[in-house]
């Protein structure tokens, strides 16, 4: 789940619901994050300093109290490392005609 959340935050800051929606979107609905799982993971990512909290931007029309999350430089490095590892795994899988 952590990878999905980091991926959702890679292009822009989002609030919790926004993360869940984004994940659902880019996985084509295959991954649906329940609130417990989502916030449990967010909590751990915050503790690991891979993401950080930031106040909601001014253009948020829904709720000014909403908390937004941003990926940290450390988070970004971890994400790209993880993603390239996965890419490598994917290459191997392709070479072996697994996918």
């Amino acid at each position: 789940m952590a990878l999905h959340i980091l991926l959702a935050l890679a292009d822009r800051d989002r609030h919790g619901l926004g993360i869940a929606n984004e994940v659902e979107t880019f996985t084509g609905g295959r991954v649906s994050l329940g609130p417990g799982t989502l916030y449990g993971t967010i909590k751990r990512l915050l503790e690991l300093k891979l993401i950080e909290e930031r106040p909601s931007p001014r253009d948020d029309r829904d709720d000014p109290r909403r908390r937004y999350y941003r990926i940290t430089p450390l988070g970004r490095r971890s994400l790209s490392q993880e993603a390239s590892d996965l890419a490598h795994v994917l290459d191997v899988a392709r070479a072996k005609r697994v996918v």
Partner: protein
Amino acid sequence: MSARDRLSERAYRVLLRAYPRSFRERFESEMLEMLRTRRAAAARRGLGSRAAFWCRTIADMVSSAWHEARQAKRERHRRPLGLVRDITQAWRVLRRSPGLAALVIGLMALTVGATTTIFSVTNAVLLRPLPYGEPDRIVALWEQRPEQRVERSTIGAHEFPVWAANARTFDALAAYTWSGGSVHLVDGGEPVQLLAARVTGRFFDVMDVPPVLGRPIRPHDDVPGAAPVVVLGERLWRERFGGDPSLLGRSIGLNDRPHTVVGVMPERLRFPEAGPGTTAQLWVPIAEPIHLYRGRHYLFAVGRLRPDVDLEQANAELASVSAAIAAELPAFSRGHSARAWPLREDRTGPARPWLLLLLGAAACLVLIGCANVAGLLLARAETRRGEARVRLALGASRLTLARQLLVESLTLAIAGGVAGTAMAVLAARAVPTLVPAEIWALDALPVDWRVLGFALVLSIGTGLVFGIAPIVSSRRATMTGSAMTNRATLAPARSRARHWIVAGQIALALVLTSSAGLLARSLAALHRVDPAYRTEDVLSVDLSLPPSRYRDALQVRAFYDEVAARVGSLPGVTHVAAVDHVPHGGSFQTIAIHVEGRPQPAPGEEPSVRHRVVSAGYFDALGIPIIEGRGFASADARRAVPLIRWYEQQEHPPYVDEPQPMPVAVISDATARTFWPDGALGRRFRLLHSPWITVVGVAASTRADSLTSDPRLEVYLVDSQEPGPAMSLLVAADAPTGLAGDIRRAVWSVDPALPLGRIATLADLVATTWTTPRFSSLLVGGFAGTAVILMVAGVYGLLTFVAAARTPEIGLRMALGATQAAIRGMVFRHVLVMVVAGAAAGLTASLSIGPLLETMLFEVEPTDPVTLVTVVVLLAVVALGAAAVPVSRAARVDPSRALRNE
């Protein structure tokens, strides 16, 4: 929001409670918002979608809540600063019940404060090293007469030099005595009387205290005929001579004889002590051929053991040297032995019983304090039983719970300990002014690492002790209780433990109160004693004539006659008399008597009497009736004085062969009954090596030296036959204290260079006898009062707890028809059991410590039934009184409310 939405939202909130609190606080609102959005989306898609949404959500929440809870628990255990968290938690818990916390801290402060104060006294008296070089090697030596069961006697002047010459187990031995009368210092201001110690040459080698200035007295100073030298005490040097270092090598007049100042000793030396708080102000060498003074026992001695020698070896050697002396000089030393004691033990001897008393009282106080705090915490543990069960059910380990309880107890204990230590530091300043010098001369109680360490150990120790009770109790809770109920069911074993605690408090309070009662009764008895001489309106003024100017006994007599005449002519003065040892003045003289017609007893086995030298007007001035014969008269004056020779070789006085009045004495009727039951007048006796002295009068017996013992055997000589340079002038007048100035001027009109010593009324002197017993009874009384307060708190607390815990039962009983009286009886039974058990234990303890108190009691037996019964009744009434409020509260329980709370 529809009703269905509200329902689902509530269900969701309930589910959220499964998460750890920190998680919930942080994410609850966001999770709720997400839920609402999702639910709305699902609702739009239809029923199936909504059902799927709920299934997913519940599954998600259960699994993640479980995950989070496990995570949180793991973190709690991993956190390195668990102690800090425990303390914070403890603080939070304590703040929730500030009354209880304040009570416990107050009790602890009282306990720790009182006990630490007593410890600091013990520390100052017994534990701190004496301020001398290697003090453990210094011993005090005493002569012993095992056959007469005399354990400590002054040392024979002929014996000490033999010890010093033969003892191999000592690096140095030294003897000392006090200057006859006191020393007058006339240089550097008004004449003053000083306390001078006369020491042998190695005295300062034994004490091993480096001088502030100059050098100590050395063996070559202590030779007959050596140039007289003096070593001053630092305080005298500073106060009298302004701390002038050029004093060294100069000559000052002591007893009108020039002495060269060779050194100044630091204030801390404070040795020897003439009495508690009275130490030598200067030191001079004895410089006399003491080995010739056979049979004169007036020396004290100290020694420095060789480093490789222990006390046993030294004592063995002293015994063998003494045996050799006794074999060589049986007439003077038969039956004499010698023994050494560590100096500290020797000096603290008289304080020991009081110290033990104090420590015993303090131990009682600590026990009561602990018991009370344990009781309070136990009561609280009962009320928190529910909390403990819930926490256990939620996965807290028993260890965590126990640790938490212990940290709470320790936090309380340390807070109380800090407050108590502050109290003890304050008390350390106050106590020395309260303790009579007769018991301890305390300058200040040092608060050193020992005292602080003691307070710390005491606080933590009591914290652990009273912390364990609730833990044991909470362990039982985990085994018996059900998690669903918060109600304290009164497990009999637990309440029994609390009953024992309170019974113990009653017992301890009883021990202290009965001790205080006995001491108070003893004090009252002491006040009732009639000293049998006039104490009201008599002033005593100590005078001491310098032998250099008053060489001749006739000069001494002339001086006292003249002073008596001048003081006697002062307005309001009814009688003037003189005595060498004023009654209750702190000193007296005992002398061996040989009664004519009786076989000469073996040396050292002669009967002895108290002897006083008085002026002819003494019996009139003090209102002591002459029962038979006559008092002294001016016609008794002799030229050949003094009568008493102290050793055989001493020369007879001049004019002894001339015709003159015979030696006469007045004796007390106790003396007359003892030696001459069939009539004493005209009978004769000798005192030491005196000529035969004839009894011319019998006076009524007095309690001039001790109120607490039967009148001693007294023998009076008249100053015109046995003049002494040091006498106390007794002035009886209507208001004698106002006359002090006139008396001083009258004395100075006869001798302007004469210093006056102590000026006090005889009543004041007698009152010093009461200081010590009054102090002990006040002290123990204070402890007893504290113990009773603590006991009341204990009984009240326990009964409140018992009543609360049994409220449902009481309600049930009342609903079933029990009367209020029956309920009262039921709860009162608890008190009665405790009182009976406590009183029985307390009485047993009181009786068993009786022998310890016996030495401090006068005319009261330690088993005095009146005191014991009174105290038991009193405490029972107080305990029942303390129980009355909770008991009547229990009896007023409203049955319907009590049962509703079930």
